[in-house]
């Protein structure tokens, strides 16, 4: 295969046929901002933030959707490029209600960051009126159309990543909107609440309802863990504020889920905070359960098991371990039954 090269900001670099300009740049750690581009999905070239200057080309070129060609001379950060990006950002800011004070995404918003780094100090265009009311109905996802920049990442996440095919582009011109089904609410559509659209939305147009006002990105610690539900074992980022999980997202690039989650992994985390949790050992006395100390409860169980084993032999006791709990817990329980009680009567719900 003959080597292909191009010039990137004055440096000659090699690339593989089929790579886009954006991919080549990113492989050499040259940062080109992009809003609509979603890794692994078909590039749409919708946002025009990723434009670059290619010598000889009349207009600026969207780097996400343009294949790199042998001999191209590319500048990713020329004055012309910066000016164009700044104008695009201003237009996006004017396209809706980008009031960062009331936005959940502030501090973690790609548009806000771009506006700052391109020095946008005023919005010179009138702010467009909002034709679509915010959807607040379901308990998990808020759709704030006034903040939507129509980048289409959510559509790609739904169509190409999760393949749930619930949302698409609808209408045209000033009333353009991302629609669920034929413009229904998420509830009424084919949406299965995986929340992948929320995870990829670069701005505050799609946000987790349960996380609202619980802490901005800068106030949250990230803890990596494994989902407590099915046997796929997705990797999660727990977004934690003062020891409480306020939000869950998928760990990008992690095995096995590569950033993806389903409704249970993403929104099913807060059962641990239920007031109904068992909080203290209980002992049944005269038919009713009463609170007890650990020492009393452990002592009672140890005595009962000892007596039973002495009287009826080790195989008169049996235990069922938990297929949801930790490996170390199951190890410990079978060790107790085998090494201490001297029975192999230990099993778990392997069969359900």
């Amino acid at each position, binding site marked *: 295969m003959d080597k292909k090269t191009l010039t990137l900001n004055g440096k000659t670099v090699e690339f593989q046929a089929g790579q886009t300009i954006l991919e080549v740049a990113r492989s050499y750690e040259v940062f080109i901002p992009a809003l609509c581009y979603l890794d692994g999905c078909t590039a749409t070239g919708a946002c025009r933030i990723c434009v670059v200057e290619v010598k000889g080309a009349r207009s600026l070129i969207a780097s996400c959707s343009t294949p790199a060609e042998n001999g191209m001379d590319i500048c990713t950060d020329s004055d012309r490029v910066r000016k164009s990006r700044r104008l695009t950002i201003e237009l996006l800011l004017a396209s809706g209600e980008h009031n960062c004070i009331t936005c959940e995404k502030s501090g973690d918003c790609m548009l806000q960051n771009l506006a700052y780094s391109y020095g946008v100090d005023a919005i010179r265009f009138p702010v467009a009126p909002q034709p679509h009311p915010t959807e607040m109905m379901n308990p998990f996802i808020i759709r704030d159309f006034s903040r939507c920049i129509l980048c289409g990442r959510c559509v790609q996440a739904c169509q190409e990543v999760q393949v749930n095919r619930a949302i698409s582009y609808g209408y045209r011109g000033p009333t353009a909107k991302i629609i669920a089904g034929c413009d229904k609410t998420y509830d009424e559509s084919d949406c299965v609440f995986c929340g992948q659209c929320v995870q990829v939305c670069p701005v505050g147009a799609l946000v987790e309802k349960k996380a609202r006002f619980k802490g901005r990105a800068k106030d949250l610690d990230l803890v990596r863990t494994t989902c407590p539900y*099915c046997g796929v074992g997705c990797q999660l980022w727990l977004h934690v504020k003062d020891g409480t999980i306020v939000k869950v997202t998928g760990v990008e690039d992690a095995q096995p889920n590569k950033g993806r989650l389903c409704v249970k992994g993403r929104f099913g985390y807060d059962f641990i905070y239920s007031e109904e949790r068992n909080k203290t050992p209980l002992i049944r006395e005269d038919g009713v359960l009463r609170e007890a100390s650990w020492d009393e409860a452990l002592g009672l169980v140890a005595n009962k098991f000892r007596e*039973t084993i002495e009287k009826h032999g080790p195989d*008169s006791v049996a235990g*069922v371990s938990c297929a*949801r709990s*930790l*490996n170390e817990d199951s190890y410990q329980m079978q060790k107790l039954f085998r090494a201490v009680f001297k029975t192999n009567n230990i099993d778990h719900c392997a069969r359900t």
Partner: protein
Amino acid sequence: MTNSFGEFSKARMFFVIGSNMTEAHPVAATFLKNAVMNGAKLILVDPRRQPLADFADIHVQIKVGSDIAFLNGVMNVLINEDLYDKKFVENCTEGFEELKLKVMDYPPEKAAEIAGVSADVIRDVARTMAETRPSMLCYTLGITEHTCGKNNVMSTANLQMLLGNMGVECGGVNPLRGQNNVQGACDMAALPNVFPGYQKVDNPDARAKFEKAWGVENLPAKPGLMIPQMMEGLVDGKVKAFWIFGENLANSEPDIAKVEHELASAEFLVCQDIFPTETTRFADVIFPSAGWSEDDGTFTNSERRISRVRKVSEPPGDARPNWWIFKEIARRFGHDWKSNSAQEIWDNEVSVLAPSMAGVKYARIEADGLQWPVPDDAHPGTCFLHREGKFTCGLGKFNAVDWTPPAEVPDEEYPLVLSTGRRLYHYHTRTQTSRTGLDYLLPEETADMSAADADALGIHHGEMIMVKSRRGEVKVRANITHQVPPGMVWMAFHFRDACANWLTNPVFDPATLTAEYKACAVRVDKI
């Protein structure tokens, strides 16, 4: 799973049987759908028109419980039309002649009649599978939850060996595990016949090894009881003291009335759980446990990947880590266990005692986990098993099996088949998901049935009906859907009211003692 989720997006073909992946393993299904969108083929074998049917090249809607007849029919065609992988069969397997003899009893016409599909579709499946290789075979509880569950499993392995689809990337036999840590609980030996890492309790060497490691004598050699035997033991007095950690047996086992009678018969019952459940109602002592995110540790997923689980907060009130509770009981029996955290248990005990996990230490699984076997500290883990057709016990063994019908089949009094499973928005008996707002997306159980059956009974979508079996009856809302074929009712076990397990049949596969959740006979009455 012999293979990995990471292979899904590269696979050229899938054979999915008895697995409602989009609902039960949603993220795995996304990778499968990606592959299909990129041109991979999908053969779906499922009595229901479940969501993956929209992506399938061939959807074979077999009758509930006819899997073996269907698979034998496919293998009959593969052999008769000379479409199987002779080289693999000769070099890597044994028992082919017996298999051949057996599947000759299942010509496509006969298999088709049992399975309720056409003979042509059976031929089509065989030819398609021979054409595009390898294919990944995936199954879930639709295969195992039958009185012939073990034979079903062997049948799927027969098919993949016959096609030479074992020991290769994007092939294999891949059971998707229902719960997050079923794989891990098995690996850790919460099973009556093995020590951690599947070392048999009836092997004297294994016993000697664990006696030394645990500092004890006379580890029991006789395999113990499985759950259904334990439960029956509660009634006949063989089991006097019973300890249930985490599981909500009163809702999750078949025939709730029977199960509750068994639990009520226990002389002494200990429950260890994060919530009060239908099961803890029967407890004499309840230990409050630390839940997910309240303790450090590991889970092992379906593809044998051991991943970290991390603590973010203390358990509420006086709740304690589960490993600590067991350790404290051991202490009261005079056993002083050294390990004092999950990491110490893993690094100093599990990985030392289980050879297949010897190379897994917490320091190595900070980010992505490792897939066992990981025999030593330098080993990168194993994406797929039986590389180049090398099976752990020499040759891959064909197990010729006959089709047997479910224990209870429809008759005049109970004319419909009830099949059960899980739905997307809930998990098991809802102890967790009912406390997360997910009830909003699925507030109650329904009985899913076909328009044809509903019409015949004069039942409207959404009306309350009565579903009855020989075990019990439930009042439940009718959900008329094209997913369910005529002759079938489909329900889940997420809700206590209208839980399918009031109806299911407590009969079990004789070897694995897995219950036949997937088939029993019911009648539906208008009320």
